[in-house]
């Protein structure tokens, strides 16, 4: 039965990816002028015959369905077009930056989940306490703070005023650290952007953990656990928390798209050389193929992450049979 659930999820993810590619094809037509006008504009030379030859060369004079088929085929082969500014294949440029974004996002997710579960657990153990209200107030606040501005305030406080941490980049320029020293250097650079990105999610994880734990704590098996003489600590950890964590897995998947959007902004504030800063460069240089390529790649990534959380959920919860 689990197999059917997984196959259904796999098909769903594939459909989303196909829809993303179709949407991208029509988005290209949203921009004024076609690829031929852009290329002609860059070469600074254009007459009717030249434009016509360009359109023929890139198949822009063919009927729309033919163009669509060609586009889908190209994307399926990993060909996302050529970046106007970099004059390199879009896929190459993106793959070069991707690991940095994944590193930052994974770190942020870890901080958010760890911190959020810890805070939410504390709040749930003593509902109505000062710590409990602090979690509520903080999450209210983080929902209202623009992430990019929060990042700038982090720089202002921890890099400019206190000078504790480096304000931007992924490593110290010109230091040429190797091995462990380099790892430490990158870790140091990752703290400010990572925590900035994590704070928004940390607050919502804390709220979610708190709500789930309060709900689970009311159930019969928890009373049984107490009745058989387990310590409060064991009841909280083994029985309540484990069951309360299940919705968090789904939530992490649902929030992946927001995490990607957030990392675009945070990367820009901290000049973190990932996909987010690349998207900004694409906007600045009016590099439409690159921007669109980033959309396609991030959408596929989020789909993959959703698939992973779905699988993780089905493994963690023996009750899951069908989606």
């Amino acid at each position: 039965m689990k197999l059917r659930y997984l196959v259904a999820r796999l098909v769903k993810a594939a459909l989303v990816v196909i829809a993303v590619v179709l949407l991208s094809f029509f988005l290209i037509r949203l921009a004024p002028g076609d690829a031929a006008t852009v290329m002609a504009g860059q070469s600074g030379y254009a007459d009717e015959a030249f434009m016509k030859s360009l359109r023929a060369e890139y198949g822009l004079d063919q009927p729309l369905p033919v163009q669509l088929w060609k586009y889908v085929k190209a994307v399926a082969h990993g060909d996302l077009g050529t970046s106007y500014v970099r004059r390199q294949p879009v896929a190459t440029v993106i793959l070069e930056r991707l690991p940095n974004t994944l590193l930052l996002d994974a770190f942020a997710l870890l901080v958010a989940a760890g911190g959020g579960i810890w805070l939410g657990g504390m709040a749930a153990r003593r509902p109505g306490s000062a710590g409990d209200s602090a979690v509520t107030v903080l999450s209210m606040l983080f929902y209202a703070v623009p992430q990019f501005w929060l990042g700038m305030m982090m720089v202002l406080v921890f890099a400019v005023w206190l000078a504790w941490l480096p304000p931007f980049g992924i490593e110290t320029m010109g230091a040429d650290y190797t091995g462990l020293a380099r790892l430490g250097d990158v870790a140091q650079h990752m703290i400010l952007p990572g925590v900035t990105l994590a704070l928004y999610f940390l607050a919502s994880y804390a709220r979610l953990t708190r709500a789930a734990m309060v709900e689970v704590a009311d159930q019969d098996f928890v009373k049984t656990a107490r009745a058989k003489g387990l310590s409060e600590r064991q009841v909280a950890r083994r029985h309540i928390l484990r069951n309360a964590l299940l919705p968090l897995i789904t939530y992490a998947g649902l929030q992946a798209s927001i995490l990607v959007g957030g990392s675009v902004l945070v990367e820009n504030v901290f000049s973190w050389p990932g996909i987010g800063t690349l998207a900004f460069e694409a906007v600045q240089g009016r590099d439409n193929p690159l921007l669109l390529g980033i959309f396609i790649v991030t959408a596929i990534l989020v789909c993959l992450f959703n698939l992973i959380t779905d699988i993780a959920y089905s493994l963690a919860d023996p009750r899951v049979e069908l989606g």
Partner: protein
Amino acid sequence: MAFVRRFLSRPTTLFGLAVFLLIVAIALGAPLLFSRGPFSIVGMPLLPPGAPGLLAGSDVLGRDMAVGLAYGARISLLVGIASTVCAAGIGVLLGAVAGYYGGWVDDLLMRVTEFFQIIPSFVLLMVLVAFMQPSLTSTVIGIALVTWPQVARVVRGEFLSLKTREFVQAARVLGMRDSAIIATQILPNALPPIVVVSSMMVGSAILTESALSFLGLGDPNLLSWGSMIGGSRSAMWVAWWTSVLPGLCIVVTVLALNFIGDGLNDALNPRGRC
């Protein structure tokens, strides 16, 4: 009246409402409060707040920050409200049709809303605005295009449950047309949750607008809080106020709107449905 009393019973709602009205007053009164426009240069760059005639200091180009903040309120409120109205319009229309008729229309709509939940909508928004050319209109349209599914889901749910009720069956027996049943019978009953969801969306639309402007995807002819922060990045090290003040404006505005949304939720959904 019971609604108004419930709505105004929470201190946070009152606070939110007071702050919101103040911001609306500043936004509307900006041309009366200041004789200069937000782009006019008034003195040396980066003068601190409290310098003669400069309540909030001056920015990188020597423009009066206070004028910029007041005019920025106009952009934030305009984009927040206009994009929410557009999103609510699309969402109500499609959600109503999907919930009322069910079947393949409903299936299709649910797939579309799921799609929007999964894809990185901020990146899509960047693509939309960049491809349409950055302007106030493209910002509003772009935000509406990526947020309407939230409304559609809620409207669909309401219509699904309301369409089976007796008063709808009665209207059908009386021979009312589907469009009339949707618009005059079901929609008024579905309004409370629509109002609550929409009120929550205004704040997030303001945050999204500021993010776009920060990245240089705002209207180049208008000064908004986000673009003020974006423009202050080079001066952040020496002049904290250029980035801190516009950010605080965004936080206070969005917080006020979220408080109002919470108040509406409590007042309209006494059992906390939303």
